[in-house]
């Protein structure tokens, strides 16, 4: 007998189907609720949904047989987009294509042994139509999600590529917030100095629109920044790549040292040659005309030879010390001694040299200062500082002087050596302690010396646990300070 239903029930069915279909998160859930509602509407032996290729996609019974005859009708129904019903094995199979405008998304099959009335047929048809619309939306949503996943994967892929770069890469938006960064950047994003420079460079790019290059040192590493403008969704952004150039810097430094060494060899050869030439010339004269020379002349000549050989010795001593420093083999032999006495002794020994340069040498210390240090090395320090003071005297100055003093300050003693010589320009004040450095060119022969005196001095002071620094004004003079711990 024919099924009948009140319009009230029809609305109930439609309402519950709409509720279920709007809750469906994916096509499968929707199809399931469609199957359920059809079962409620008609007493079905089985309900199935075919995909657009007319293969069973979902059903409430496992083995559904679709005979050739039925299959032909399903195909016809899908092609014509017209619902139909066919009799197969005593069952009426209702066929409803799931259609969205001009496309078939699937087919709903419901097999029943009752004869459904016209209204039920129309109702299922409406539900099938609604399902078609919802199904398409869900499928669109799914393909959207799939595309989203592809975009995400592409993003990850790009991120991996960027992460494999040794450089830091970061993209800042117009508010200077990072919108993209690789791993290398994230590892450094807390270095405020680096980030500040990045932001400064980025805003320069945003205002000028031109590629910017910058350099920064952060935590002992030198970075080179290249910032370029990029467009994203109509907005200006800045792409910055940051490269660690420390090694390049180091290489540059080594190259500079190499050049200094070459210069050093040239200058040392010259330094050694000067006394040697004198010794050689006077010895030759002596040998050639020994019988002709009177005693005074002979004495003068031998004095010169002796003096030059001393000079040669001191140069070689310096070189030896320097070599020791280079090999880190310089050791101290500490004893207790009176520093004031040492200063007086050194001043005394250099009076002759000072007089030859017309320089007044003054010792301003009288109180004995007992320290525990390497006397020989401290003597070397004093000689070096005093001789520098004398050597770099200003030729146009009227009363040239070099003053040395020492005083106790807490547990250390501060020695100061001041002069009114040429002075050292500001930019060289740190460099004078560097190896092979001489203000001006290393090949300036007017002043003798290998350019390693202050390096050795600094090394000795630091070996004692002390410090050396200087104050200087060009054409007014310099003061070198040495601070030494008093010791045990």
């Amino acid at each position: 007998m024919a099924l009948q239903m009140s319009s009230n029930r029809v609305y109930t069915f439609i309402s519950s189907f709409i509720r279920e279909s709007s809750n469906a998160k994916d096509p499968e859930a929707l199809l399931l609720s469609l199957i359920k509602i059809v079962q409620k509407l008609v007493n079905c032996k089985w309900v199935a949904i075919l995909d657009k290729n007319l293969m069973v996609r979902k059903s409430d019974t496992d083995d559904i047989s679709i005979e050739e005859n039925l299959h032909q009708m399903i195909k016809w129904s899908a092609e014509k987009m017209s619902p139909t019903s066919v009799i197969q094995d005593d069952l009426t199979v209702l066929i409803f294509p799931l259609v969205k405008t001009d496309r078939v998304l699937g087919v709903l099959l419901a097999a029943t042994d009752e004869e459904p009335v016209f209204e039920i047929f129309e109702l299922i048809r409406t539900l099938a139509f609604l399902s078609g619309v919802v199904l398409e939306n869900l499928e669109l949503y799914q393909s959207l999600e799939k595309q989203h996943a592809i975009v995400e994967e592409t993003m990850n892929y790009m991120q991996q590529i960027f992460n494999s770069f040794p450089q830091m890469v970061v993209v800042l938006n117009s508010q200077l917030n990072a919108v993209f960064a690789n791993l290398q950047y994230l590892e450094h994003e807390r270095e405020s100095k680096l980030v500040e420079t990045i932001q400064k460079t980025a805003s320069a790019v945003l205002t000028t629109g031109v590629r910017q290059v910058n350099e920064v040192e952060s935590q002992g590493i030198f970075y080179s920044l290249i910032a370029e403008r990029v467009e994203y969704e109509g907005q200006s952004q800045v792409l910055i790549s940051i490269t660690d150039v420390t090694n390049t810097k180091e290489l540059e430094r080594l190259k500079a040292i190499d050049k200094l060494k070459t210069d050093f060899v040239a200058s040392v050869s010259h330094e050694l040659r000067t006394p040697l030439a004198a010794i050689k010339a006077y010895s030759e004269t002596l040998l050639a005309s020994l019988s002709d020379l009177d005693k005074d002349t002979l004495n003068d000549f031998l004095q010169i030879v002796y003096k030059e050989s001393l000079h040669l010795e001191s140069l070689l001593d310096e070189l030896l010390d320097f070599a020791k420093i280079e090999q880190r083999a310089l050791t101290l032999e500490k004893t207790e001694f009176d520093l004031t006495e040492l200063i007086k002794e050194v001043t005394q020994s250099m009076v002759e040299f000072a007089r030859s340069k017309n320089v007044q040498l003054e010792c301003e210390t009288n109180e004995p200062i007992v320290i525990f240090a390497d006397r020989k090395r401290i003597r070397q320090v004093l000689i070096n500082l005093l001789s520098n003071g004398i050597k770099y005297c200003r030729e146009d100055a009227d009363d040239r002087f070099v003053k040395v003093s020492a005083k106790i300050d807490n547990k250390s003693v501060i020695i100061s050596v001041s002069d009114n010589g040429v002075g050292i320009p500001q930019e060289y004040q740190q460099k004078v302690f560097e190896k092979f450095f001489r203000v001006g060119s290393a090949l300036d022969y007017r002043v003798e010396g290998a350019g390693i005196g202050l390096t050795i001095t600094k090394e000795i002071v630091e070996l004692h646990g002390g410090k050396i620094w200087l104050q200087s004004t060009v054409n007014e003079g310099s003061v070198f300070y040495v601070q030494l711990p008093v010791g045990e």
Partner: protein
Amino acid sequence: MELQDILIRIDDLPTPDPIVQKIVSVASDPDASAKELAEAIKLDASLTVRILRLVNSAYYGLPRKIVALNEAIMILGFKTVRNIALSIFTYSSVLKNKKKSNIDHYQLWKHFLGTAVGCELLAQMVGYPNKEELFISGLLHDIGKVALDYIFPEAFNAVTKLTKTLQISFVQAEDRLNLPNHSIVSGKMIERWNLPEIVVHSASGHHAPNNFSDSVYADVVAIVHIVDFLVNLMRYGDSYTYGGLTLSSFALNVLGIKPRFLTNLADKLKIRLVEAEDFLKIEQEVS
């Protein structure tokens, strides 16, 4: 001439015989079953034969031959079978007018059928589920012209003369001759035949879709309007309109389609019309 003058004589018009009326009423009954409809049709043997002929025509393109009415109803559905029965009735109404008339009834029928096929096709293309009703809407939209031909063949002749010489539309000619609008008459007739409201309104409104902007029938009126325009444009059959027809942009907007869509519709319609050729020679098939 007033609308009343036609309506008074509406009884002179061919009305569906009791069997077709029964078919129409069973097809509209929500509680009806295939068996009931089959029982109703079987009372008229020649109708049964004609229906089965059309069921197996290229228009429906069924994969196998249907020999039982019951099965035809199950497969094609109540409404489609009703449509076939009504087509057969309309065909005879149009072509069996033995009164003195100068018009080519076959060409008029061709216009009816073209519009019916086009309406069902457009309904499907825009995703309107109830496409079978649109077939009837298209089939009967100009049935008012048949009424005029029956009751006042001279007036019909005057209209055709006017449309031909002045290259104007049927409605414009009706206006000039103070004749009632044929689409209104169509609506009245369909109402009398107890067909669903959707058919009544889509037929009576097919020349004025803009009047239906607030109606639930806005979309079906738009479908009939567009297809009527297109079938006239394609010169499939003859509706005795020779110009002056305009396509309402409102109708296109209601369906959310662009004029470009009409080219696509026309291409598909040409194919469907070839498949529907059996409907053009319903009589010959039987005799």
